[in-house]
């Protein structure tokens, strides 16, 4: 226990780590807030910049950016009616009406404190649940990993895209891209077309930066001429009575956030929409009708999306399955540093777990401090014209890709994925499942083959195993339900998602 505490406090006591976490959180708030810059984009670019560092400072910086970025989106949602990040889409619905009523300051104060609160709930859930889950995860058979990964891909594919078919295509495409290179079990080349260069696989950080950075920047070119609306900001610190009034709702929304975040594949954006929806259905007497500036309408999504941060770390650290797109990128960072996220991570490198928990807590505290200060300068920075921002994103994407292994070939891959991603986005696809598929593909492939080999290469015995073990049966049912996707709850929610989006 005392050892855990030492690791927990590592980033609090080491000045360098403290500074990096603070810088990451600060930068994250701005990255999240500036429309066009996303946390996933920033995290993928940062991985390549930090790969020569030790693992701790790199993780400290990325955790800060993650925590700050998920929160930062709310600010531009409130002040400009443009959600700075997908996780803040729901916040804009009531945040902007609040700003129009001259209550931008109260709205920002309230979202900051409830984000902080939600962040804490997520971190506590991570600290309590992860050790238990990772012990339990040692019992998982390869087929269970296959099912969990399928569940993640299906969840993100069906909830975030235009249709399940598009989500499936994107996920399968990612898996196929992840298969390129030498097969880890037989050392055969797959999709290498006889070239040596492809034996090492497609550089996935280049793919991430292309899909999340360049394709996003190219898509942004369509809204060059959207002018933001300015708002005046008054008092920021919310009153105690106001906070006390919304604590129960914040706690409830945080619980939703943790669960959605912990589900493989789904993160803060979906958590926020679900919490908003839940608040809308259950709050009897909102301060104002929803959509016209209800405090409940900003409290619920903002608690949930920050709670989802801690939640998303749970499957990543215990199973090696990312909880959302950002943790998919963080898994990439862990791989680069020679670490293997999964049930053995907690046994082999327990310090990493408690360090992460302590680090997220620190980032959460910094988020509260930076969130309640400096709003006035903030409004100026957020108004950076896209004509300057887009070229900057492109430069950073190029430098970031080049930095991984000083190779211009990687940069060409990145541009190729960027342009392909642009067309995917234009025709209503999500690029998230592609990257998730690239990360999960190799895991799914080896899990599938191990399960098949242990069933004696007999497809019937293999299929039977999916329904005979209790755990596999539960997961199989979950995947089947998702695949059918015909439950009215999901469909209703999806309809609402597309309408709001």
């Amino acid at each position, binding site marked *: 226990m005392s050892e855990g505490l030492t690791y927990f406090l590592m980033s609090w006591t080491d000045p360098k780590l403290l500074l990096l976490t603070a810088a990451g959180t600060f930068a994250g708030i701005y990255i999240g807030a500036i429309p066009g810059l996303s946390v996933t984009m920033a995290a993928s670019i940062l991985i390549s*910049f930090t790969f020569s560092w030790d693992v701790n400072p790199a993780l400290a910086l990325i955790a800060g950016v993650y925590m700050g970025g998920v929160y930062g989106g709310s600010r531009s949602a409130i002040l400009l009616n443009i959600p700075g990040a997908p996780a803040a889409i729901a916040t804009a619905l009531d945040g902007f009406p609040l700003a129009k009523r001259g209550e931008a300051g109260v709205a920002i104060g309230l979202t900051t404190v409830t984000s902080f609160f939600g962040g804490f709930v997520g971190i506590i859930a991570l600290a309590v649940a992860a050790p238990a889950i990772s012990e339990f995860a040692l019992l998982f058979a390869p087929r269970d990993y296959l099912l969990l990964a399928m569940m993640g891909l299906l969840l993100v594919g069906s909830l975030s895209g235009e249709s399940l078919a598009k989500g499936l295509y994107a996920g399968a495409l990612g898996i196929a891209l992840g298969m390129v290179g030498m097969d880890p079990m037989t050392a055969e080349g797959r999709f290498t077309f006889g070239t040596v260069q492809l034996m090492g696989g497609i550089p996935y950080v280049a793919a991430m930066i292309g899909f999340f950075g360049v394709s996003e920047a190219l898509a942004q070119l369509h809204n060059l001429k959207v002018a933001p609306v300015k708002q005046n900001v008054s008092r920021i610190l919310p009153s105690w009575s106001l906070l006390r009034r919304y604590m129960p709702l914040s706690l409830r929304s945080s619980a939703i956030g943790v669960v959605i975040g912990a589900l493989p594949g789904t993160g803060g954006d979906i958590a926020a929409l679900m919490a908003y929806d839940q608040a809308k259905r259950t709050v009897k007497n909102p301060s104002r009708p929803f959509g016209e500036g209800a405090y409940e309408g900003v409290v619920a999504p903002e608690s949930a999306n920050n709670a989802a941060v801690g939640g998303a770390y749970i499957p990543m650290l215990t199973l090696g399955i990312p909880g959302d797109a950002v943790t998919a990128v963080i898994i990439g960072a862990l791989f680069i540093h020679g670490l293997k996220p999964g049930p053995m991570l907690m046994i082999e490198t327990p310090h990493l777990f408690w360090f992460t928990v302590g680090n997220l807590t620190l980032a959460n505290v910094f988020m509260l401090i930076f969130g309640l200060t400096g709003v006035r300068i903030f409004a100026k920075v957020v108004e950076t014209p896209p*004509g300057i921002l887009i070229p*900057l994103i492109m*430069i950073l994407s190029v430098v970031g890709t080049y930095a991984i292994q000083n190779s211009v070939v990687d940069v060409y891959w990145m541009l190729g994925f960027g342009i392909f991603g642009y067309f995917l986005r234009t025709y209503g696809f999500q690029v998230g499942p592609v990257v998730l598929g690239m990360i999960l593909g190799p895991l799914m492939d080896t899990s599938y083959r191990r399960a098949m080999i242990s069933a004696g290469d007999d497809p019937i015995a293999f299929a039977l195993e999916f329904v005979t073990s209790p755990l596999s049966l539960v997961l199989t049912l979950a995947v089947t339900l998702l695949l059918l996707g015909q439950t009215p709850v999901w469909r209703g929610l*999806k309809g609402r998602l597309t309408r709001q989006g």
Partner: protein
Amino acid sequence: MEETTRRRQPGETVFGYLLLLFGLFVATEGYRIDGLYSPSAAGMFPALAGGVMALSALAIIRRTHRMKPAHIPEGSGTAREFLRRTTPTDVAVMALLMLGYMLALEPFGFPVASFVFLFLAIFYLHRGSLLATLLISAGTLAAVYLVFRVLFTVVLPTGWLFR
């Protein structure tokens, strides 16, 4: 069946068929890895992924056909609308600029190539005055260089042309 209110984008049908072809290609290449001699063969999962891609591409094509057709103004064709809306000049110009930037990166080095790229891109997109663009690109480049070269100690191409 849920309603899709979005209209079909120009080029969306062709894109669907391209996706189908790609899926079939992945499936055949997956099969060709080792001929799927057993259920746990190295090619099984890639072939399955290709199969899923092909099947979902079929579903996507079907849905695209059901959409209301793209709004094509009088005197314009699908190809022209594709160029105007899906690949507008801005996107094409920026993609080409980026390509040029990448090609210039190794011979000219990071500082020169990035400065020219930033200058041209900001001048084109932001449409400010020449002096303002010059100052903005120099300032941005200096910030990027300081943060990444000095703080993150990233190795950047120095260029062999001016050596």
